[in-house]
């Protein structure tokens, strides 16, 4: 077992434990903190695959900006355990069973696919480097790149329309 494999297993366990923590914690602030752990673990995976740009952006945008927003929203809403309405037990059970069924189907289906035998390329390849990414983004994918600006612009106009004082 070389260092890459050790890191891979460590990060995978960390990501899964973190994800379980997000779902399992009673306090929403703890959930957010666990989510940060998940994001860091996934960024670690990106670095293992030599996708440094994605790793950095993942940390800056998700673990940084979006998590701060999450925390703000939770604190503004002032959620705590007593204020939460009691949920129907049957509904919880139904949700769990339905979710488990979906997971079972997907695991059963995907475990037989050919892709399971493929190994991802670790520690090599230049596909995730910033220079390469920039060239691809501004040559082959320039149209979707430009058009996504319309998406963001419409979202911004919408935020102003909703938030503007009358």
């Amino acid at each position, binding site marked *: 077992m070389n260092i890459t494999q050790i890191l891979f297993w460590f990060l995978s366990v960390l990501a899964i434990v973190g994800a379980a923590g997000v779902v399992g914690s009673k306090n929403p602030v703890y959930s957010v903190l666990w989510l940060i752990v998940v994001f860091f673990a996934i960024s670690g995976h990106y670095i293992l695959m030599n996708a440094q740009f994605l790793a950095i952006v993942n940390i800056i945008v998700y673990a940084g900006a979006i998590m701060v927003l999450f925390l703000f929203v939770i604190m503004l809403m002032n959620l705590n355990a007593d204020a939460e309405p009691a949920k129907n037990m049957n509904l919880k059970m139904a949700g769990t069973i339905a979710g488990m069924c979906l997971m079972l189907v*997907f695991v059963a*289906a*995907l475990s*037989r*696919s*050919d*892709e399971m035998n493929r190994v991802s390329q670790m520690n090599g390849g230049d596909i995730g480097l910033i220079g390469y990414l920039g060239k691809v983004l501004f040559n*082959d*994918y*320039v*149209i*979707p790149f430009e*058009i*996504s600006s*319309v*998406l963001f*612009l*419409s*979202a911004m*106009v*919408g935020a*102003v*329309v*909703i938030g*503007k004082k*009358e």
Partner: protein
Amino acid sequence: MSAIIISAIWGVVMMFGGVFLKKSSSPKYWAIAGIIILLIANVMEFFGWQFFNIDTHGMVRFDNFTLVFNTVAFACTLLYFLLNGRDIEKVGNGNNISEYFALIFFVLCGVAISSSFKTLLMLFLGIEIMSIPLYILTGSDKRNLKSNEASLKYFLMGAFSTGIMLMGIAFIYGGNNLASFYIDNLQLGNGTLPVMVGAGLVMLVVSMSFKVSAAPFHFWTPDVYDGAPTVFTSFMATIVKVAGFIAFIRLFQSSFGVIQSQWQGLIVIITAATLLIGNLTAVFQQSVKRMLAYSSIAQAGFMMLALFALNDTAKEGLILYAAAYSLASIGLFAILARMQDYTIEGFNGLGQRQPVLAITATVFLLSLTGIPLTAGFTAKFYMLLAAVKNGHQLWLVIFAVLCAAISAYYYFKIIQAIYFKEPTENINHQIDVNRRFEWLLIIVAGLIVLLGVLPGLLVDWLYY
């Protein structure tokens, strides 16, 4: 390509209009000017005059089908602006008029993308550019709690369906051997479906069915259509929904068309469920607006037949259906938006009070039912013909005809209220119409009858 660029630019123009246009009626005229420019540019592109010559790396392609559909969509939007301009000005106490028009132009940009995409990436962008402005337009009546609730519900459910779609795209990208986003290039030619692509296909079916409100993913539709301001319900129930279908059929024909036998069963179930649920629930509605929401689900069931059949007749039928359904619904919603009372009783005695509105509303309702001589009939006929030509599962065709018969019940209930019932005492029957509005309704009704008699006027352009 000009449709995408001009609609995006005009959206920005309208956005700045909020700052520079002081008179509250001028944004409407700017928007009408913009949609006319868009329509002309699109028609010119159809005849080979390109304004913008851009190398898109095959990301989008404007073929005949796309351009004819875009022309239909823009023409319907023009009629929508002309009919509803005054009602849009009233939404939310008339504060953000030019922003609403800007958002509608951004939606049109999304419509143009989702009818022309050639890669999954552009499909995602197109669907999202269509959806996000709609979340805001749904909640634009800020003082109305129902509108707020509808907006939040639509946003949360829409976000989940977008997540499912992205997951599906990721599976397809990882599952095909070339790791390619291009929908023509999935290489499913030998008739087998790799497991990962299959999982992605199911997820795409789920998320696209959500966007076009096909059962069992339709639960958001009645609440959202009912809660949104009526003018915007009119827009999203017609042009946007139909554009979703165009994206749906474009995706499944070019990428999964060769292995249709493997997923046709899924579509059959969705189609039958949509037809049954939409029609049966519409029967029990008291509010006309909510009934039209359920009827839009029922009509979606008929449009799903195009996806089931997936041949040339289906494409002709879908274009015709897009025009017929959009025109009739826009007309009906325009009348509804001017009314004070949305229950069926609100229509009582319309025949005596407003003869022009009554006769045009009757034409729209007959077209939605699918009575001969209206466009609704030819559209339904093309759809059923396409399904028969496909040759599988003929019971679905009979089932669709039975469901259309159910739909006659609730559409005719309104016609009955219009002509055979006396105005009710305690309901505010006041309608605020002028001569121009009546003439526009007559034009829309005339177009419906024209397409019903001569469907070739529209369909033949596909083979121009």
